[in-house]
C-alpha cells in the first residue's frame, strides 16, 4: 500500500530549493519518479514529503561551452542518448543512458536522479566517473562543485545535504584520440537492473599507446569504483590488437571490486563478469585504432 504523503510540485529551481530548505530531511525529491514510485509501492520511502522536480524546466538541458559539456540534472536518459553533443563528446554517457530500463523509463528518468539516488548499480555513474564529471550542487544560499568520484559515500548515500539539490553535471569534451565506452550485464536485453556495469576512457598517445586510462565498475562494490591498477595495465599494453593481451589486462579488475551475493548473481560470478565486460568493450574500441600484428 502506498502511504499517505505531502506532495509539492516545484515550478522552478528557486522554489525547489526553498522547499528543500523548508522540509529538510522530511522531504524526498522526485524527478522522473522511476525509482521513487517503485520505492513508495514497496514501503521503502521513509520521508513524508515528496518534492516533484519534473516541472523545473531550467534543469533540463544539454550544452557545450568552451570545451565543457554541461548536462542539466533534469535531462532525461532519452535526452542524453539522442544528444549529438553527448554522443560526440561523452560517448560512454550516451551509451549508458541508452541502456537504462526501457524507452518509457528513459523518457522520464533523469541523470540527476540517477546520480542523486547513489545506487551502486546506477548506469550513468560509471560513465560520468570516467568522463571526470563534476557534480554541481545548489542550496538556497549558493552552489558548490564536487568531483563525482568524491560524491558517493555508500549505497544510496552521498555528500548531498538535506537542503541541497544536484543541478548539473559537467565534464570536459572528449575529442579525437580519446575513446570511451560502456558495458552492462543484466538478466535480459532491456528492463534490467545491472548485475554489473562498466565504463572506460582511453587517451591514445602519438605512439598509439594508451597514455591515460580511466575505468569504473558498478554493482560490484558499495559505490561505483575506479579501477586504478587495471588502468595502469591498459597503459602498459603494446599498441597491437591482441585479444589475449587485452583480456589479460582486464583480468586485473578482479582485484579491484568487492561485490556481494544477491538474487541477481553471486559475488564470484560478478568479479568474473566485470572482467569480461571490460575486455569486450575495450577490444571493440581499440580495434578502431590498433591492428593485429
Amino acid at each position, binding site marked *: *500500500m502506498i502511504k499517505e504523503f505531502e506532495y509539492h510540485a516545484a515550478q522552478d529551481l528557486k522554489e525547489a530549493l526553498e522547499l528543500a530548505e523548508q522540509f529538510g530531511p522530511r522531504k524526498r525529491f522526485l524527478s522522473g519518479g522511476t525509482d521513487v514510485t*517503485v520505492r513508495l509501492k514497496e514501503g521503502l520511502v521513509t520521508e513524508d514529503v515528496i518534492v516533484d522536480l519534473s516541472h523545473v524546466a531550467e534543469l533540463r538541458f544539454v550544452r557545450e561551452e568552451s570545451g565543457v559539456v554541461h548536462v542539466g540534472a533534469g535531462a532525461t536518459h532519452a535526452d542524453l542518448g539522442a544528444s549529438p553533443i553527448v554522443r560526440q563528446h561523452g560517448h560512454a554517457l550516451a551509451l549508458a543512458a541508452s541502456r537504462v530500463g*526501457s524507452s518509457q523509463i528513459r523518457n522520464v528518468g533523469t541523470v540527476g536522479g540517477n546520480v542523486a539516488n547513489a545506487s551502486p548499480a546506477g548506469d550513468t555513474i560509471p560513465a560520468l566517473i570516467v568522463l571526470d564529471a563534476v557534480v554541481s550542487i545548489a542550496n538556497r544560499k549558493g552552489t558548490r562543485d564536487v568531483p563525482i568520484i568524491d560524491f558517493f559515500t555508500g549505497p544510496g548515500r552521498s555528500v548531498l545535504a538535506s537542503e541541497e539539490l544536484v543541478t548539473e553535471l559537467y565534464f570536459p569534451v572528449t575529442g579525437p584520440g580519446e575513446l570511451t565506452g560502456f558495458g552492462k*550485464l543484466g*538478466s*535480459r*536485453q*532491456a*528492463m*534490467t*537492473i545491472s*548485475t554489473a556495469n562498466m565504463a572506460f576512457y582511453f587517451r591514445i598517445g602519438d605512439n598509439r599507446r594508451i597514455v591515460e586510462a580511466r575505468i569504473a565498475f558498478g554493482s560490484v562494490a558499495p559505490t561505483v569504483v575506479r579501477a586504478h591498477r587495471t588502468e595502469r595495465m591498459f597503459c602498459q599494453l603494446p599498441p597491437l590488437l591482441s*585479444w589475449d593481451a587485452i583480456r589479460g589486462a582486464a583480468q586485473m579488475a578482479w582485484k579491484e571490486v568487492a561485490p556481494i551475493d544477491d*538474487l*541477481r*548473481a*553471486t559475488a*564470484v*560470478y560478478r568479479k*568474473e*563478469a566485470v*572482467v*569480461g*565486460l571490460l*575486455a*569486450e568493450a575495450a*577490444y571493440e574500441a581499440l580495434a578502431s585504432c590498433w591492428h593485429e600484428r
Partner: protein
Amino acid sequence: MDDIHFEQVDRVDALGKACGTTEYMSDLSFPGMLYAWFVRSKYPHALIKNVDISRAMALNGVVTVLTAADVTGFNGFGIVNPDMPVICGDKVRYIGDTVALVAATTERIAEQAAALVDVDYEVLPVVDDPIEALKPDAPKLHDKGNVCLHTLITKGNVEQGFREADVVIEHEYRTPRQAHVPLETESGVAVPEADGSLSMYAGSQYAFRDQLQLARILGMNPRMIHVYSNPVGGGFGGKDELTIQGGIALLAMKTGKPVKVFLSREESLVSGWKRHPFIIRMKTGFKSDGTMLANDVTCYEDKGAYTSLGGPILNLALEHASSLYRVPNTRHEGWAVFTNNGVCGAFRGFGVPQVLFALESNMDEAAEQLGLDPVTIRRKNVLHQGEVSPIGHTLRTGVSMDLVLDAIEKSELWQHREEYKKTDKPWLRRGVALALAPQGAGLGLGIPDYGGAYIDLDGDGSFTLRIGLVEYGQGTHTGFTQMAAGLLHVHPSRVRIVAGQTEGSVDAGPATASRSMYTASNAIAAAFRDFGVKVAGALAAKYHTGADAVCEAKDGGMTTPVGFRTYEELAQEFSQESPLRWEGYFVWPTADREIPGAAGLPHWIYSFAAQAALVEVNTLTGETHLLRVATALDTGHTVNPQQVEAQIDGGVAQGEGFALFEDTLISKGQVRTRNFSTYIIPTVQDVPEHEYIILENSEGTSALGVRGIGEVVMVPIIPAVALAIHDATGVWVRQLPSTPERVYRLLHPGL
C-alpha cells in the same frame, strides 16, 4: 468438409483490444460495489491457533471479515481433489494461503483492515524439497502424507535393454517454477442478484466447472450461479483452476453487495498457480546405429501445497517421457510430492516441456557419442501411425513426427546453420540445435471430454455461435467464426460469437489441453449438420417436399427442394419458429483401454512440432541470446495463418522464458521473485527472428481436419535452446533456466 479453404481474416476482437474498448471482467464496476482483500498466511507452514477479527471489523468502512467458520458450503476447491481451503481454518500450507477475507468500501480500507486481522500461528517446519519430502520422517503437509500421486508405467525390460545398448546416457535434469504472468492478474466481481442467485464475472478458462466448484463452496444449487468468464486477459493454464472466485463469492453472498478484487502483480506472483518444477533422472540406452533400446525415467514433481491438476500433469509428463520414439523397453516412474513451495497447477505444455528437455538432451548426447547427426538419430526412432507407443498403446490417429522432422531439416536455418554460426568476435560462440515434440491433446482417457455448440439463425439472416470455450488471446474465437462461416458459406463477419458463460453459451469443456479448435471444429460441424436436417424438415412440413429432402449451404444461403433460399429469406420464412437454433454435440474419441496404473492415459490425438534454434553465447559473461528460430508445425488444416504464426511467436517467447530467464525463486517457503524486476520474462528485445513452416496433415477425426497447436509450439524450443548452447560451447545444460551465471559456471567448472 475438410476441403474448406479459409481466407485470412482479421481477429474478431482485434479492434476492441487495440483500441482499449474491450471490457474485461476486471474492468467491470457495479453500484454499491465493495472491495475484497485476501488476508494471506504469514508462514508457509503453520497451524492456526486463533483468528481475531475484532480490530479489523472495528475499522471504519469495513463491511465484513470472514473466517473459515463463515464458509457456507464445502470449504475447499480443486479440479481433481478439493483439498485447497477457500479460507484456512486449522492449517496453512503456503505463503499465499487465505486465512481471512475482508470486504470494505474502498480497496485501501480493505488492505488496511487485512493488516488488523490477528492470527496466532504455531509454526511448523517448512517442506521445500520434493525428494526430502518423500522420506518417512519428513513433516507432513496433509493427513495422508506428502505423496499426491505415484505412477509407474513399464514396458519390456529396461535392464535387458541397457545390457544390449552400446551407449547409455544418464543424467539428472531440473526445470523452473515458471509463472503464467498474464497481463490481467486474477480478478473479478461477484454480484448477488435480487432473486438470490449469484453472478460471477471473472476471467477463467472454464465457466461451467467454475459454476460447479462455486456451488460446492457456497452450498447452493449450481443453477443459482451464473458465471461469465470471457474475455480473459491471458490464461496459459493459470486460470484453469479457481483463483479468487471462491473468496469474492462468499463475501458477496454475505454482504449482499457486489464485491471486486484485482490482485496486484506482487500478490499474483506470490499466491498464484505456477508450472511444476521437475527433477528428472533419465537413463537412455542406444545401439551404435542410434536405435533406442531403453529409457528409464524417474520424475519428482514439486506439487506445492495442494492437488489441483498435479496428478494429470505428472501422468501426461510420464506419457511423453520417451516422446513418440520407438523404445521397446521403458520404465516411467513419477512422484507428485506436496511441499510448501507455493501452489502449482496447469500450465501450457502440462508436464511435457519438462520431460522433453531431458529426453531430447539425452538424444543429442547419444548422437554426439555415436557420431550421428541430430536429424539422423531422431529419424531412426520416430514412430508412425499404427505403431506401438513407448507406454504400450497403439497409435491409431495421425502421427507427424517424421513430417515435422523432415520439414525442420529443410528449414533455411538448419540448411545454412554453418553460415549462421559464424561470428568475428573472439568471445562469442554461436550454436544451432533442433528438437521435436508430440503433445497429447484433450483431457485423456476416463475424463468425459465433450463439446457442444449452438448456431442460431438471427432475424436478419446472420448467425450467433454459442460455445463455452473462452478467448484468452489464442485467437480461437476468430477461428470458430471462420469454421462456422466456412460451413455456412457466409463471410465470417456474419457470425457473432457468445462464449465463456454459463448463460447463453453451451458447455464445450475447458479452454485447455490444445483442445479448443479441435473440439469446436466437431461441435460446430455437428450443429451445422443439425441445421441442414432441421431446415429440410421444416421445409418438408411446409411444402410437402418429402421427408428425404436435402439442404446444402451455398453462396450465402441454402439450396433446398423448393429452390435456393438466402439466409435472410430462411430467417423470414421461419420467423415464427422458436427457437431458430441448431445444436451440435461431440464426444472426443479415446483409447479403448487405459494404461494400467496411469489414470487418464493414453491420449488419443497429438499435436506435432519441430523447432531449431540459433543462439549466441558470450563466453565472458555467460549471456545467451536466442537469435533465430525455425518452427515446423502440423496444424492439420490451417484456419487462420496469422493466428498460427502468432501462436508460434507467443509459444517461442514463453519457451524462451522457460529456457533462459524465468523462475519463481522460493527459499524456505518465501517467494523472492515478487515482481517483474526479479521475475524475468523476455521483452520484445529478447525474442528471436522466426521462420515458419506450416504443414497440413489433416487430422482424420476432426470434421475440418484441424489439430490443436497452442501448447506444442512452446515445447521443442526449450531443448533446442539448451542444445544450441551445447553446440556453441560444448557444455551440456542440465538445469533451466540457463541464466548467464549458470552458463558461465558450466564454462568455468572450477569457479
